């Protein structure tokens, strides 16, 4: 700031004028100004850097999980192995030793492997899920028996890691999970084009599994879906009703003051405390089955209610009083005025609040750990009372697993979760833009 010309000063005891003091300090003050501004800039940059690092880290860890390695082998569907009696009944076909077929194919592929321990190592390059793949093929088409087909089999997770370049060959052999002989076989397969990465549909259609290559998020997604639907069904009417009463009808007294303070405080209570409530009251007293979307939704409802109530009240305040007065003026009862005129106008704002509340519920993990939603569940749930888990809890469970291949799957699951959250937030923003009215 360049100070304008100061009127001729009179000078102080030492003969220096005020303007001299000011001018002498200006350099220092402007330097301080620049430092302060740089500090602020640095803070914003640092904050944005954190956002960038977080996203880049997760995408870099996880993008490979959308592909899965397969190994192509010519499988001889040997009638002797599958169905020695020739009865072709479904039970025999289901119980057959399909791993033997894969072993035979692998031995044929690598005839030089004769040592027993080597043969074990060789058959470990396909997933333990691969025999089921063959089982499904045969059950779907028993005519395959006796023929030889070339089949793309699911590879083991270590092979998958190798194919994605996450196994460092330069490490000494005993520091690697894949030894040199296995690398040799894989190189041979890759050279013949029998090792291929394809889009990982299993990730979106499978339930959880201890084997990384078989694990998918379908179960967790279904669990999250059922939980959110119930949460919305419970919390939206209650939230809107409560907001309507508190904003439009409640008398100003101690009781309503208490409710208001309560709502504000509940919004800031740690989420894990809601888990304790769910455990002690819903499971302990009312006997709601644990690990189900139902109990999850009950806890989530209590958690999201404050958010929805606060948003709904804001939406109600933005509807001008003239609307209510006009309705009352033509003879509507107070409730009719609210339900026929005010609520429809406030609905977009309330829906926005509900979506934001649901987004919070979708990302919430801690209270669900308390009410048993961390069980290891393989089946995809099909209802509100099936045992299930939800996406964030699945992420937590996978993050705890020691297998390296789970790291990329965890990151991929996080990407899916973040995508859903962004979609919901975007919907909320668009809804607000589209319907927001200035009165």
């Amino acid at each position, binding site marked *: 700031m360049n100070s304008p010309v100061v009127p001729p000063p009179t000078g102080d005891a030492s003969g220096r004028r005020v303007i001299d003091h000011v001018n002498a300090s200006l350099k220092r003050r402007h330097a301080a100004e620049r430092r302060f501004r740089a*500090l602020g800039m640095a803070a914003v940059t640092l904050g944005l850097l954190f956002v960038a690092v977080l996203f880049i880290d997760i995408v870099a860890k996880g993008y490979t999980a959308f592909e899965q390695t397969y190994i192509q082998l010519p499988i001889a569907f040997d009638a002797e192995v599958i169905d020695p009696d020739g009865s072709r009944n479904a039970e025999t076909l289901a119980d057959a030793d399909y791993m033997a077929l894969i072993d035979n194919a692998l031995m044929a592929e690598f005839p030089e492997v004769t040592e027993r321990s080597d043969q074990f190592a060789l058959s470990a390059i396909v997933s333990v899920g691969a025999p089921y793949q063959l089982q499904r093929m045969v059950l779907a088409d028993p005519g395959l028996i006796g023929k030889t087909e070339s089949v793309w089999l699911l590879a083991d997770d270590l092979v998958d890691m190798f194919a994605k370049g996450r196994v460092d060959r330069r490490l000494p052999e005993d520091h690697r999970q894949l030894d040199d002989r296995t690398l040799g076989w894989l190189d041979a397969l890759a050279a013949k084009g029998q090792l291929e990465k394809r889009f990982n549909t299993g990730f979106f259609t499978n339930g959880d599994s201890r084997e990384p290559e078989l694990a998918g998020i379908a179960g967790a997604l279904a669990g999250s879906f059922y939980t959110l639907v119930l949460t919305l069904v419970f919390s939206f009417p209650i939230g809107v009703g409560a907001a309507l009463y508190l904003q439009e009808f409640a008398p100003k007294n101690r009781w309503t003051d208490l409710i208001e303070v309560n709502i504000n405080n509940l919004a800031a209570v740690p989420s894990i405390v809601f888990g304790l409530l769910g455990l002690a009251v819903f499971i302990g007293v009312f006997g709601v089955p644990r690990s189900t979307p139902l109990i999850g939704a009950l806890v989530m409802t209590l958690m999201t209610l404050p958010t929805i109530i606060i948003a709904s009240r804001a939406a109600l305040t933005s509807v001008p009083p003239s609307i209510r007065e006009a309705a009352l003026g033509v003879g509507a009862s107070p409730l009719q005025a609210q339900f026929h005129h005010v609520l429809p106008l406030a609905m977009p704002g309330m829906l926005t609040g509900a979506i934001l509340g649901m987004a919070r519920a979708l990302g919430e993990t801690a209270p669900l750990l308390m009410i048993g939603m961390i069980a290891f569940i393989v089946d995809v749930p099909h209802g509100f009372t099936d045992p299930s888990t939800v996406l964030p809890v699945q992420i937590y469970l996978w993050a705890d697993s020691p297998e390296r291949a789970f790291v990329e799957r965890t990151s991929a699951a996080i990407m899916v979760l973040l995508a859903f959250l962004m979609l919901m937030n975007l919907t909320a923003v668009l809804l607000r833009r589209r319907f927001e009215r200035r009165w």
Partner: protein
Amino acid sequence: MSSWLPLLALLGVLALAYQLGQKRAVAAVGGPTCINNLHSLPGYYGLYTALWAGIPAILILALWSGFQDHLVVSLVKAELPASLTEGLSEGRLGLLVNDVKNLATGNIVSTDPSPEIQAAAAHYLQLRRIAGFALWGLVFALAGGGLALALKRIGPQLRARNGVEGTLMVVLIVFSSMAILTTLGIVLSVLFESLRFFQQVPWTEFFFGTEWSPQTAMRADQVGSTGAFGAVPLFAGTMLISLIAMLVAVPIGLMSAIYLSEYAPRTLRAWAKPMLEILAGIPTVVYGFFAALTVAPAIRGWGEALGLTVASESALAAGLVMGIMIIPFVSSLSDDVINAVPQAMRDGSYALGATQSETVRRVILPAALPGIVGGVLLAVSRAIGETMIVVMAAGMSARLTANPLDAVTTVTVQIVTLLTGDQEFDSPKTLAAFALGLTLFAVTLVLNVIALQIVRKYREQYE
């Protein structure tokens, strides 16, 4: 699935009630041309009938489903032969009942079921079937009775709208009391279990003891599982991690709020603010993953390069990431209060020749200080209650240390560890989690109340 069908049927009855009520009201005044003689619009008579049919039935349904299991279980328990139940503790009995239930629902049972258990399971199933029939019989009888009663009362003079609206009002009041009920539920459930805990472990040991090892001995001769419930290491660990988080979040959050509201050009503000707020929308489990798999190994690597010993689950990693999570919280609250400072104060400061940073530091910050303190307190309460980051990135070992490179554990971590996995409802180990929960709830509540009070006071000051 079996309970969906009667529920649908009940909805059908309600729809029927609506139709009948409406028709009856119109008929009572002699056809659709004369509805002016009715007190309310015909629809209200329909709703009136449906409410009469629905409310008692639904109330009974809700109550019954809440308590049916208790009733059936206690009946089954009473029927169990004395040879099985003799000398069993409450917990053992519970396990036995669980076996019976599992057998009845076709789940896997822990032991081979004895004939007595099988008989009990059959008994349990039978009782449940009877209870189901009785319940739906009662529900439909109530619905039918209510319907008939309402239809009888319908006439031109019946004030149907007032009845319907009165009921609706009661429903709204009940809805708005949910917040109170929730708080009450939290307090009661946590308090009740905590009191049982403090009967077994003296509260002085819990609040002042410095040793925490909640594993109680299963066998008398077991080593190292005496069960010590001194929570001081947990409190210290929680505070250490929260302190690190605040050291990250407050400077960055506050400075970026100042920069964005006082210095940044409009376009930068429009972009940077939402970008920063993305951090607030990311689920905590994602931060936990980031802390455990990226930040903790990185810190360990750097520490070892400098010759320091760093625990693989260091408090620093968890605190740092928690700080990142809280940045948008601090910055948006500070932004609000800074913007609430009247422009006249800035103009006054500029007019005296102060630079912009002097204005911010000497005028705006002191004026906004109460609001900022309130925001920081809210952020602290958030840090204390944060669970997933510490569960995934902080350790389990309860150590009393101020070294941020060591592994510490927190209150929330212990609640989760104590309550996940196998639990007995009576052991001090499980109850300790509720005592920790009570402490957590009380501390965050006090912080929140103070913070909200400060923020509100501050708002009033400039309005």
